[in-house]
């Protein structure tokens, strides 16, 4: 589904990604962990098309097409969804309007009929019940005055409405208490399906107790330095990221696992 080869990216002239390889097949959940500044968020921004980041080398193929050639909105319509670390507030614009505009833009691309306001509200209310959001959130301005937990729930709600092919969760657990995190994790787990893949970016192992990944990758200094199964997350939790510095001079270990680049 997603093939990343030798990806190099810079922001403000500084190279953040330095030859990243990653393969993701349909139905897989990949966790990307690593110390601060390793390039985790950069990867999510590059995949979704943020213009502040310049790709200087490498390729990204998504469902057989050149992802890097598409503008932001076309990537979203092709099925890439980013759950934001800091969702944006949009005063004066109702959540219902925003989500319907978004869903219809994507449905149009898929060749599906657009939903009118009534059908949309019906659909949205069902999904909101699942993520534990009250109906009033439909008519409130997008994220305005939402608590940290409510904003993240709203991201999960959008994700479940848009039914993406590839969902990227960028530090979705940051700033959440355990209860809020469980709600988010439940929402994500409900979306697991054989033809949907996910990238879960996180600094801590905590979230991965609730969203159990198929593969765990360690991102450091702009590339994946180690890959393994879910037990790798526990190892990182125990050892921290200090060992990365020791390994700096050693040759990077060959990425392992079915999901890693060959």
């Amino acid at each position, binding site marked *: 589904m997603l093939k990343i080869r030798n990806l190099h990216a810079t922001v403000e002239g500084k190279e953040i990604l330095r030859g990243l390889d990653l393969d993701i097949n349909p139905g897989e959940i990949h966790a990307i962990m690593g110390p601060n500044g390793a390039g985790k968020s950069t990867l999510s921004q590059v995949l*979704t*098309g*943020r*213009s*502040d980041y310049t790709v200087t080398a490498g390729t990204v193929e998504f469902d057989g097409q050149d992802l890097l050639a598409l*503008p*932001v*909105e076309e*990537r*979203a*319509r092709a099925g890439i*969804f*980013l759950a*934001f670390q*800091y*969702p*944006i507030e*949009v*005063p*004066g*614009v*109702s959540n219902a*309007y*925003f989500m319907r*505009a*978004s869903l219809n*833009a*994507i449905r149009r*691309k898929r060749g599906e009929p657009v939903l009118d*306001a009534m059908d949309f509200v019906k659909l949205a209310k069902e999904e909101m019940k699942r993520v534990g959001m009250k109906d009033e959130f439909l008519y409130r*301005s997008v994220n305005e005055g939402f608590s940290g937990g409510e904003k993240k729930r709203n991201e999960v709600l*959008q994700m479940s409405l*848009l039914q993406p092919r590839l969902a990227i969760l960028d530090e979705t657990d940051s700033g959440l208490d355990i209860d809020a995190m469980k709600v988010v994790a439940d929402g994500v787990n409900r979306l697991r399906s054989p033809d949907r893949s996910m990238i879960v970016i996180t600094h801590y192992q905590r979230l991965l107790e609730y969203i159990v990944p198929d593969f765990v990758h360690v991102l450091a200094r702009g590339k994946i330095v180690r890959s393994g199964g879910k037990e790798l997350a526990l190892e990182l939790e125990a050892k921290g990221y200090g060992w990365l510095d020791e390994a700096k001079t050693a040759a990077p270990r060959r990425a392992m696992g079915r999901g890693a680049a060959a």
Partner: protein
Amino acid sequence: MSTELQPWADAFGQRSGGLPGARLPWLAALRRQALDRFMTEGWPTPRIEAWRHTSLSPLAAQGFEDGGRQSVAEQVTELKAGETGHWLVFVDGAYDAELSDVGSLPAGVTVAALSASWTQDAEAIEAVYGRVEQGYGTSALNLALAGDGAWIRLDRAAVAEQPIRIVCVAASPKAAHFLRHLIVAEAGAQATVVEHYIGVPGAANFCHATTRVQLGRDARVTHLKLQQESEQAWHLGEIEATQGHGSYFGSHSMSLGARLARNDIITHFADERCETMFNGLYYVNQRRHVDHHTLIAHEKPNCVSHENYRGIMADTGHGVFCGKILVAEGADGTDAIQRTDSLLLSRLAKSDARPELEIYAEDVKCAHGATVGQIDADSLFYLRARGLDEAHARDILTYAFAASSVARIELPEVRHHVERALRGLLPGGSFMEEAA
């Protein structure tokens, strides 16, 4: 004497005898003195600091004449549709009883045309009418030529639940008209007053409107001015309030129309524990120009002011905001916050935003901030990452920028009215009809 000014002296000669209240000696004298001041001083020029960014020379050069009056009944009916309130309608500066609909008023509340109130309320009106030396040359021109306006008076503890609506319509496309609205709220009284300015399409009229507000102890007055004149019109406005102990004055200025609009908005804290909120929003596109000059005069201790102005500049539009907070000597315990944000939608649009703090007291809390910029890149990315076209995303965010100013309007029906007006005006705003 400049030839530019002579037509105004002529207009005064023709009109003054027939202006409502002309038989009151003090008023006739006041108008005469005001004309003299205007003839001496003329139009404000950019040499005056407060007019540095706004030139009136095209206005000064333009001639105005009555005639060609069009029917405005439909426009007024449309404005009133589905809305509540006590309505006073002025057409080309004169009260129109037929289009007005004051309805039943609560006890102790007067809502009437000034022209109909000279007999019974002359003394009360005189007390707040204003003086010759106030403001600029244009202020004096208003004082000389204004014959009508709203007379709103709330007795002690009287409360007007429904908004009082003043509608001023330009019906003659080349006419000049002058309005003077007076609002007196005695101790503990409460009211919301909305001034709407509209005109027939394409009208190149000149409207000068002065509003004077007096608030007694613990009175609460929320004033909203919604300026939606034709994009060829000239609009000059002055709003000046004087606040008594513990009173609240809220000023909302939504300036969306006119080729050139200038508003001077002032409040004076005449006693302690006063509170004010100045909220402003303006939109300029094409070659239009909007200028707001505000002054919040913390003349007494322990008063609170919040000021928030936002402007959206498109095409080659030019927006100006100059906000002065004056904290007089001894006004300790002052708490003043001022913020202004300008959104530029085009590279040729221009914004001049100038906060000004003048503090002569020791123990005060004053903060101000100003931003000028384009649509926030993070917000744009968020919307596009949800599949929205860039153009659609920009329209949504432009509306959102304005909406946070509109959200400060407390009365829901007035807020909704302004939201509708914005949707009818902002780029891509019509799609937002369903967003509300």
